[in-house]
């Protein structure tokens, strides 16, 4: 029997974290969240638009069922990330934070040094920190040593749908991590999510592939199955790969 996913002492039965960006309507987002089976949904922070002050995503997410995981998107350095994390907590979120420090608008790649700096401050400040990082095994180990609750290496750039293009490094991260490894960013299809779990990743985070799909609700259900398939296969034990063939029918040739 599978163990549930445990992050910072909290138990989750779904291994699919879901982002809430880019959905065409709150209704579609709500349906997709439901279909995904997720228990953790990420959100961002932005200024209230004074012309439209009532608008809030909270109406669309039942916070009694889902853990809201605010991210620090928009932060270009450690200081901005820390400020965002504290604002999220002040806005009533639990002290969980998806830490992303991204100086680069084109590829949205995280800054390892600033991420480390912000992680140190936030961990000391009592936050449960889930850092979004390059697939760098040494960086992942340093963050873990600082006390982050997970590491979240990227498979490929955010929203690129390219899948796991950093496989070698993620395998090393998984081999060594003592905290859950959540593959984040770039997972564009259920097969990518299944692959991550088959490799031994503890969970994945998906947003774009679901939100921009022609049918987000079905795609969310598809990712749910992909994640479960990958996890089941990891637990059942995958066969080794061969460079030659191995007959599935008896090798005693017919009539021989």
């Amino acid at each position, binding site marked *: 029997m599978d163990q549930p996913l445990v992050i910072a002492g909290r138990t989750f039965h779904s291994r699919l974290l879901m*982002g*809430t*960006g*880019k*959905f065409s309507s709150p209704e579609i*987002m709500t349906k997709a969240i439901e279909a995904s089976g997720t228990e953790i949904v*990420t*959100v*961002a*922070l*932005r*200024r*209230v638009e*004074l012309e439209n*002050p*009532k*608008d*809030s*995503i*909270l109406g669309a997410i039942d916070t009694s069922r889902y853990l*809201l995981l*605010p*991210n620090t*998107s928009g932060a270009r350095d450690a200081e901005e990330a820390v*400020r965002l994390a*504290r*604002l*999220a*907590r*002040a*806005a*009533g*979120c639990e002290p969980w934070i998806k830490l992303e420090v991204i100086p680069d608008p084109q590829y949205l790649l995280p800054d390892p040094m600033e991420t480390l700096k912000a992680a140190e401050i936030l961990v000391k400040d009592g936050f449960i920190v889930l850092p979004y990082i390059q697939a760098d095994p040494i960086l992942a180990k340093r963050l873990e040593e600082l006390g982050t609750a997970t590491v979240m290496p990227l498979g490929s750039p*955010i*929203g690129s749908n390219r899948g796991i293009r950093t496989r070698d490094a993620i395998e090393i991260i998984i081999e060594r991590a003592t905290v859950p490894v959540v593959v984040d960013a770039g997972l564009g299809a259920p097969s990518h999510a299944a692959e991550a779990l088959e490799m031994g990743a503890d969970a994945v*985070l998906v*947003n*774009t592939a679901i939100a921009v799909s022609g049918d987000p609700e079905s795609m969310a259900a598809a990712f749910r199955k992909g994640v479960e398939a990958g996890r089941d296969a990891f637990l059942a034990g995958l066969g080794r790969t061969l460079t030659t063939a191995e007959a599935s029918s008896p090798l005693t040739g017919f009539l021989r």
Partner: protein
Amino acid sequence: MKISINGESREYEGEATLGDLLRFLGVSPKSVAVERNLKILGRSEMESEPVEPGDSFEIIRLVGGG
């Protein structure tokens, strides 16, 4: 008085507490976080926090994100 909200300068003549200001703006305190002059306010402080000329406020809410 002149105050700044989310980077825009505003004239405000209402009651001089943040609670009043938020009501005036139509913002529900439950769904936002507020910085007054870079100081983040706790839930409990919000209602009674004074609003004074030259104050600069950031009013932040949660939105969809990945």
